[in-house]
């Protein structure tokens, strides 16, 4: 595999992403149409609308691991099935506000677990052990951005806004609330959100990992995160670097550093 997303095609990601070896974590629709990151078009502002975009585009709503929108066919995703099974075994209805499903240890492609001092058992826990789809989605964003930049060079125009739009849409679709890799929310029944705060750490890890693979610098990731926290979270920690509490910051940085280490490819 070429290590640079700009040098590899989406088909390749699809082939790797949806290879038989990883079939357990792959949904058929995703496999049939490997387009993990939707395109943002500035001439159509709705494509930048975090919510309508995600909700109106059935491609983007397919969560390969099924952790987030567990309604409809997404319920067959491995993450949704895990949480649903745990709920059933513990008498928790899928319309309950919370699920205590503890998850499974995250395993890097080399088989190692990820130490996490904020976890009761000392390792990073998630609804699924495989975070390769997160990294792949990040690389797909980078590929789109690189393509826009290349087109701009050849076409002699400024692609800044298009690149920004793709970044915003890609990050929002994958990481913001109800994003595909936001593991701390699940919607088993439309309109009824189930909280999974036990997956907060891995969700923040995903932010760092995906953003690193998408080509952002660590400072950019933390600045974006801090800005959103300032706008949207009462838990914003004004006296902390980037306004992020240490736990959130640590896991975001850990995800970023794990991505930068080459654990998921470059």
């Amino acid at each position, binding site marked *: 595999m070429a290590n640079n997303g700009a040098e590899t095609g989406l088909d390749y990601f699809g082939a790797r992403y949806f290879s038989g070896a990883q079939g357990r974590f792959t949904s058929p629709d995703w496999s049939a149409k490997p387009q993990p990151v939707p395109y943002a078009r500035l001439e159509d*502002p709705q494509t*930048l*609308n*975090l*919510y*309508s975009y995600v909700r109106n585009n059935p491609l983007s709503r397919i969560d390969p691991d099924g952790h987030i929108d567990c309604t409809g066919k997404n319920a067959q995703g491995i993450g949704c099935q895990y949480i649903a099974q745990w709920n059933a075994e513990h008498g928790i209805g899928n319309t309950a*506000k919370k699920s205590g499903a503890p998850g499974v240890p995250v395993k890097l492609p080399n088989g190692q677990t990820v130490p996490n*001092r*904020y*976890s*009761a058992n000392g390792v990073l826990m998630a609804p699924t052990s495989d975070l390769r789809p997160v990294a792949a989605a990040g690389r797909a964003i980078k590929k789109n951005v690189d393509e826009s930049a290349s087109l701009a060079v050849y076409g002699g125009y400024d692609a800044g806004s298009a690149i920004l739009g793709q970044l915003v849409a890609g*990050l929002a679709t994958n*990481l*913001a*609330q*109800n994003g595909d890799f*936001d593991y*701390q*929310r699940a919607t088993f029944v439309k309109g009824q*959100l189930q*909280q999974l*705060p036990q997956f*907060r750490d891995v*969700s*923040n890890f995903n*932010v760092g990992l995906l953003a690193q693979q998408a080509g952002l610098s660590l400072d950019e990731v933390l600045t*974006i*995160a801090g800005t*959103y*926290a300032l*706008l*949207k*979270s*009462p*838990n914003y*920690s004004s006296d*902390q670097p980037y306004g*992020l*509490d*240490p*736990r*959130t910051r640590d896991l*975001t940085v850990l995800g970023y550093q794990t991505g930068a280490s080459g654990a998921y490819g470059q």
Partner: protein
Amino acid sequence: MASKRTARIVLISAIGVVLTVGVGYVLLRFTGLIPSDACVSEDLKTIPNLSGMRFKVEYTNCDAFVKDEAVSVYVARADREADSWFAKWANRRTLIFRYDPGRKNPLPSIEASGKDRILISVPEVSSVILQSRRWHNVSIEYKIEHNMNP
């Protein structure tokens, strides 16, 4: 005359700024870039009357690109009837303690430790976001057994 004109300019400028910010905010909310439902809160515990004070413990989990959570302790006077809008405002709750929970998330315990003294205990926190030592004439003490990020 000049001062009137200056005041008018300042007033118009202020209205312009407020309108611009307001329209921008509404636009961002409308497009979903600032969603209104980023956080989920739930009441964990209410102590209706402890030495004349009402305490409420609230958990808030937010999804603001990164994900954060916090346990907040609010206090208000317990003996005040709040019929009118003004009375409710005058007896509005005050945030005195907010922390990011640690590896486990047990409820904080709140007890009176003396006259006009309150003790809030929590076994472990990841970090403290806000910590008030005094509320009106009440001093607030804390017993945090383990702070992971002091």
